[in-house]
C-alpha cells in the first residue's frame, strides 16, 4: 500500500555546495540518498515529493560539513499481509518462483501455486498447466496475494500465493 507521509532526515552537505544553489543541491542530494531505500517502519521510499522545511545548519567541527535537519514529503510503499499485488517474475525454480512488485521481492513457494501447474525444468524453467495454456516463467506478470511479510530494519521480504480466485498470470510475455 502506498502512503504519502512526512519524514525527517539530517543531511550532511559538503562545503563545496555552499553558495546560491545550496538548497537545490540539498534537495537533489536528499533524493539521491533517500529514494529507493527501505525502512522496516515506513516501507520503501518511492519518491520525494516536496520539502516541508530545512532547519538551521550546524557546522561539524573539523570537517566543515554542515548538517541540515530536513523535513520532506515522500511517497512510501509498504506491503501488507493480505494485499494483492501485481508483480513481475524474476526467477523460477522447483521450490517456487520469485517476483518483484516494484521494490519488494516476493517468493511464491510451489505449494502456493495451483495444483494443476507443474514445474518444467530446462533452459527456461517454468510452471505450466497440463494443457499448456498458462505458463509462469521469467518476466511473466503475475497477480499474487501476500500471505506473509518479513520486516527487518532495512529490508522487507514477502511470500505470496497465487492459489486463490483471480490470481495468477495476468500477461504472458510470449503473447506480446
Amino acid at each position: 500500500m502506498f502512503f504519502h507521509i512526512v519524514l525527517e532526515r539530517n543531511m550532511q552537505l559538503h562545503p563545496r555546495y555552499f553558495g546560491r544553489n545550496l538548497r537545490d543541491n540539498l534537495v537533489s542530494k536528499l533524493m539521491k540518498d533517500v529514494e529507493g531505500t527501505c525502512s522496516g517502519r515506513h516501507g520503501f521510499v518511492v519518491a520525494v515529493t516536496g520539502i516541508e522545511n530545512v532547519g538551521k545548519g550546524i557546522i561539524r567541527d573539523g570537517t566543515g560539513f554542515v548538517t541540515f535537519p530536513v523535513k520532506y514529503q515522500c511517497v512510501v510503499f509498504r506491503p501488507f499481509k493480505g494485499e494483492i499485488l501485481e508483480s513481475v517474475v524474476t526467477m523460477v525454480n522447483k521450490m517456487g518462483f520469485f517476483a518483484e512488485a516494484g521494490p519488494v521481492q516476493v517468493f511464491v513457494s510451489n505449494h502456493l501455486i495451483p495444483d494443476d501447474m507443474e514445474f518444467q525444468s530446462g533452459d527456461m524453467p517454468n510452471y505450466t498447466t497440463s494443457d499448456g495454456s498458462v505458463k509462469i516463467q521469467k518476466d511473466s506478470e503475475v497477480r499474487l496475494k501476500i500471505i506473509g511479510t518479513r520486516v527487518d530494519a532495512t529490508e522487507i521480504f514477502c511470500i505470496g500465493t497465487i492459489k486463490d480466485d483471480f490470481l495468477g498470470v495476468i500477461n504472458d510475455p510470449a503473447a506480446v
Partner: protein
Amino acid sequence: MIEPYNKLVKLAARAFYDDLTSKGDNQPKTGRSDNRGIAVVVLDALTRRQWVREEDLAKDLKLHTKQLRRTLRFFEEEKIITRDHRRETAKGAKIYSAAVAATADAATGKEGEEKVKLHTHSYCCLDYAQIYDVVRYRLHRMKHKLKDELENKNTVQEYICINCGKRYNALDALRLISFEDEDFHCERCNGKLEVESDKFAAQDGGDGGDGDENARRRRREKLKDMLQKMEVQLKPLIDQLGRVKDLPVPEFGTLQAWEARASAAGRAANGENSGDSKSHLGYNGAPMPYSGDTKVIVDFNGTEGKGEGVKSETDSTSLKVLPPWMITSGMNLTKEQRGEVKQEIKMDGTSTSTAAQYTDEKKSTIVHDDKNIQDEYIKAYYAALLKKQHEMEEAAKNPQDGNGADDPSSSTSNRQVGIKTKREEDDDGTEWEEAPVRGNGGYKVDLNVEAVAPAEDEDDEDDVDWEEG
C-alpha cells in the same frame, strides 16, 4: 413466525453445544458432574420463553442457579442470549410476574412476592437476530478454515537441511538461493534444503520424504472427509437458515420494553379494550417503581371507563365464570340465523368483508352492529307477525339482544366490543376457523358475532406485530 427461529436455535444447540461442559477442563469428570447436554436443555427451554428470570428458569429446569448461570454466561459470550441484571424490590419482580402471566406460553409460576429487600435479578432472553448471524458466521468460518487447510493456503512452507537439520521457512527464501543451481542451500553447511511438509503431517508420524508425502495425503483425505461430513451433517441447519432468511426476526426488545408491552398485551387480551391505549400510555409514562402494582391499573381502567364500566366489568367476570351462559347465547344466535337468512344478504356483503379481510375498524363493526340490531328488530316484528314459534324464539333471544342494544345506546360502544370478545375469547379458535366457510352463507347474526371476534383477534395480532416490529 417465531417457530422457524426456534427450530434454528434447537438445531444450532444440538449441532454446536451438544457436548459442552460448563465445568472447567481441569476438574475431573465423574459421572455425577458430567453435565453435557445441559446447554441444549437450556436453549430449548429458552425457545419456549421470552424474557425469563434466571431463578425461575433454574427452578423450571431443576438446575442449580449457579450451574444455569454458568451456562447462560457462556451463551452470552457466544452472543446467543441477551441478559439484563437489575436491582429490584418485590414490586419490580411483580411487574415481571405480571408480564409473564400475560404472555401466552410462559409456563413460569409467579413468585418473588415474598422478597422484600432489594435483590439483583438477572433476566435472559434469546437474541434471535444475533443467533442468525452468529450461526452463519460460525458455519462460514468452519468451512473457510477447512478449505484453507485443505488447499494448504496461507501456510508458510518450511524447509529443512538434510545435513545439519537447520530449518528455514519461505520468508528466508531470498537468502537461500544459490547461484550455482536453482535450489535452496543451507547457509551453514551449504547442503541442499528439502521441503518439509506441514506440522499436521509431522504429527501424523510422517518421517522422511516418502512418509511425508503419505502423511500429507492422509491429512488431505481427512480434511476432505471432514468437510464432506460437515456439509452433510449441518445440512438441516443450513436449510433452516435459508428458510429463516426472509422471515422477520422476532424481537423482544429490552427487558423493560418487553415487560411494558407484555403486560399491556395481557390486559388487551383480558378484554379491557377501551382503556387499553390509555392505560398503556400511563404504564409507559409512569416510572417503573410507580407502576408496580397491576391491580391499581385495572381499577383505574374500570373507573375511567364510564358509569356502565362497573356493570360491564361485572358482566365480563360473570361471563367468564359462567360458560353455560355463553353456550346458550350461541344457541340462541344459531336459532336466529334460521329466521333471518334471506334479507340480510346485503348486510352480509359488508360483514363478510369485515370477516374476510379483518381490516375493519371497531367503529365500523359497531355501526354494522347497530344496523344489524335494527334489522333484527324489524325482522323480529315480521317474524312475530308470521309465526308464533318465532316469537317464542325471539322472546328467548330478547334478553340477549337487549343486552346488545344497551351498549350502542350508551354510545360507548367500544365497551361492547370488549364484552363480546370476552365472551368469545375461549372459542375464538374454533369459531374463527368457521368464519371463512360460512362467510358467503348469509348467517347474519353468526357472522356478526364472528366479525367482532376476528376484529378483536386482529387487534391482538396487531399488538403482537407491534411488539415484535
